[in-house]
């Protein structure tokens, strides 16, 4: 979706300002939001792509002015409400008013280490040959889906070169909609800065993105 999260190439946000000796969390609630976001994933009622879609669905103006843990708080609140796990009335009352929804599992403290160390690999068994190989010239699709996509606006309808073949990965554009993982070949595609941004850019510079086969077609 062309939402507030698709920031590549926007202007006017000012300089990058680094905080010296920045802590991981600036308030206790930020740590709780991080921990809750990770822990709630174990309930098995959404995948990582659905959780990214929930965050980027925030009103663009709100998204751009919110701190990242505010965005995450918005994300889990919206996922929990969409699945009927909690209601606004319960949040106001501060207690349970509706029966709980069935979850696949609850993350227990003794399992945290193993779950974090195992991660959640996105690669899948390879079925069928890759359509492209390193060195192929491709063009990205000109597409503006209202749903989640990992093809940012700034890289649509642009010609680039396949610079790496990563293997077969879950296709987030499908998975975020709950339409299944639709595993697809994933490639690193390299674009020159002048292709993406115009002739006044440094001709040495490049930007590479990791894109899936459905985002690409061969460029003649």
């Amino acid at each position, binding site marked *: 979706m062309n939402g507030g*999260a*698709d*920031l*590549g*190439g926007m202007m006017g*946000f000012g*300089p*990058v300002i680094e*905080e010296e000796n*920045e802590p*991981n969390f600036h*308030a*206790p*609630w930020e*740590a*709780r939001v*991080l921990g*809750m976001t*990770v*822990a*709630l994933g174990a*309930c098995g009622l959404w995948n990582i792509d659905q959780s990214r879609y929930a*965050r*980027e669905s925030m009103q663009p103006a709100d998204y751009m002015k919110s*701190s990242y843990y505010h965005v995450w*708080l918005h994300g889990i*609140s919206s996922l929990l409400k969409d699945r009927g796990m*909690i209601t606004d009335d319960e*949040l106001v009352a501060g*207690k*349970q008013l509706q029966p*709980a929804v069935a979850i696949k599992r*609850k*993350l*227990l403290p003794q399992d*945290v280490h193993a779950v*974090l*160390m195992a*991660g*959640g*690999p*996105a690669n899948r068994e390879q079925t069928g040959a890759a359509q492209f190989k390193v060195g192929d010239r491709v063009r990205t699709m000109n597409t503006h889906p209202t749903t989640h996509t*990992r093809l940012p606006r*700034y*890289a649509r309808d642009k010609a680039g070169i396949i610079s*790496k073949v*990563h293997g077969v*990965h*879950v296709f*987030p554009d499908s998975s975020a909609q709950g339409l299944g993982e639709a595993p697809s070949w*994933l490639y690193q595609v*390299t674009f020159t800065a002048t292709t*993406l941004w115009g002739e006044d850019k440094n001709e*040495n*510079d*490049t930007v*590479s*993105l*990791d*894109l899936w086969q459905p985002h690409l077609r061969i460029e003649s």
Partner: protein
Amino acid sequence: MHSHDDDDHSHLTDTEARVRALESLLSEKGYLDSAAVDEIVQTYETKIGPQNGAHVVAKAWCNPEFNAWLKDDATAAIHSLGYTSRQGEHMVAVFNSIDTHHLIVCTLCSCYPWSVLGLPPTWYKSPPFRSRAVIEPRSVLADFGLELPASTKIEVHDSTAEIRYLVIPQRPDNTESMNETDLAKLVTRNAMIGTALVKAPGATS
């Protein structure tokens, strides 16, 4: 500015109260164990951080076989050191050289190699960096005090998939006598994102 600094005291207090209410509701409904949340927070506060990545970089500088493995299959090489955790399942290492400088960004969200760098700093997740790194990387690097010659190729990597990128900075001059442990202490988080170079001990620039 886009940061926590926007939050006045009352807003922070509101959010704190809201998050506490949410956590307590989720526990009551049986979805969440607060002790698991504590454990997750503790892990990122004390166990997983940029020291992991610094170990990978220093090993790559000292051990040609490991360096070659990292180029060929960064996932296996990094996992062999025990750094297997989430947001590090699929790794690619990119190597800075005299001719090429790599910079990592996630324009769409905040994808970051947690397993080797820990949680991302606020600037990495914020609009100024995410919007500008792809269109004007040189001016972003200048914000960090890093000016590279126009002849140095800048390769920006936008982390649009579950592949996580780690920059292997150039080893500074005059560090031949240093061992892996001491070298690791020179390697900063920013150098592994690509917004800094690694400096030799005592170097001023």
